[in-house]
């Protein structure tokens, strides 16, 4: 789950999918997910999957990353499909349902910058949820970077060896405990910054992409 890479591709790449309006993409996504949920036909599911793969190829999205993201649900679905007795066709349909819905979402997030996606979702979600999504997204990078440097430090000191489980648990819990304290500091600082900028319980979003803003200038 490399959020930084996803964000870079969504904001910096240029393809047909990147240029499509957010609402068009969301409408496509809704139709696709509704079809995936309602059908049990393997042929239809493969066709929807092929459609999103074609869109990804035409939109010059990194196919390996797209497939990697889409295959997360497969891990759990495979376990379910193998251990239950619902028959081969249902097992394949179940696997495809998870894979195709994740594939369609990965296509959307790899071609739409998050602020635009949240601005569009803000029309249907409660305001507070939208603000929280936006803040979580911003803080995700700060916390992930902090955890990354902590883990690197621990690894360099040989604290994350699986041969010494007690040492591993102690180091990992110290790192995560420090991360909790760091997170609280970040939250407090974030609130102060927002207050200085005139935050009164509502964040305003732009509806244009960074590229559009640049070209307008």
């Amino acid at each position: 789950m490399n959020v930084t890479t996803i964000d870079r591709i969504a904001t910096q790449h240029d393809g047909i999918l990147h240029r499509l309006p957010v609402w068009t993409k969301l409408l496509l996504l809704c139709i696709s997910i509704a079809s995936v949920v309602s059908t049990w036909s393997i042929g239809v599911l493969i066709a929807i999957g092929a459609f999103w793969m074609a869109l990804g190829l035409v939109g010059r999205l990194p196919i390996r990353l797209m497939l990697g993201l889409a295959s997360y649900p497969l891990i759990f679905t495979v376990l379910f499909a193998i251990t239950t007795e619902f028959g081969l066709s249902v097992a394949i349909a179940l696997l495809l349902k998870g894979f195709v819905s994740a594939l369609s979402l990965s296509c959307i997030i790899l071609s739409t910058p998050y602020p635009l996606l949240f601005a569009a979702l803000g029309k249907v979600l409660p305001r507070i949820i939208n603000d929280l999504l936006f803040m979580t997204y911003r803080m995700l990078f700060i916390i992930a970077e902090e955890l990354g440097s902590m883990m690197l430090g621990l690894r360099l000191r040989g604290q994350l060896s699986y041969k010494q489980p007690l040492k591993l648990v102690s180091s990992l819990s110290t790192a995560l405990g420090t991360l909790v304290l760091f997170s609280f500091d970040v939250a407090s600082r974030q609130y102060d910054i927002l207050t200085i900028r005139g935050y009164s319980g509502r964040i305003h979003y732009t509806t244009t992409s960074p590229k559009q803003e640049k070209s307008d200038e």
Partner: protein
Amino acid sequence: MASRLIESRPEYRRKIPLVAVVAAFVLVAMSIEIAPLAYHINLSIIAGILLGPLLAPLAAFIVEIVLSLLGHGGITVLGINFILLSLEMVGGWALYRGISMITRSFITSDRTRLKTSVFLGTLIVLCCSTLLMLGVVYTAAPGLSAISSEHAAEAHADEGVVSEHTEPADEHSADDEDHAHELPSDIRVFASTVLVLAPLGWLIEAILGAAIIGYIERVKPELLVTQKRKKRS
């Protein structure tokens, strides 16, 4: 409800960045994989303890939305995932408080009591949420079984096979109803696989949770001080 509470009471506005940061913390913690076991930690109980029962569901919802956008959670099961994660957070908080109060009389050391509460709370909550997840699968099983029978019937019809398996529609649906009562056999292997593998995950999570709370208690105990204690002091 929590969202209305924040909007109606300005003092809760300060908590918005905190909810966001805890949601981000849970998401980042989920990226740490215990490699030999291919298990990723959750820390939902720690999040519940830090946020409390009103704000924890908000963080759970945000975590699930972001996970589903990344293809990790599944957009079609967003609702049930949200309910399970919220229950973990709120249940974890309640058990932590409950066990902490019960053990106050015989565990005098604050740190040991907190660690014990988190350890036991995490084990119980994760066990309950796994059982709930199996319950959800169990309730979905009749539908899957019916679809499986339909597929089998269609395959027989395509091949032009007339056998004892291709009954008329009425008989077929009656047969499905009978099967619905025997369904546990369909998911028995899945349930036993999950119940064999999951306790290891619960144990890792409980040990890590207890150690993290122990660390916070040592470094910044005021984060774990309850409102009552704050008023008293």
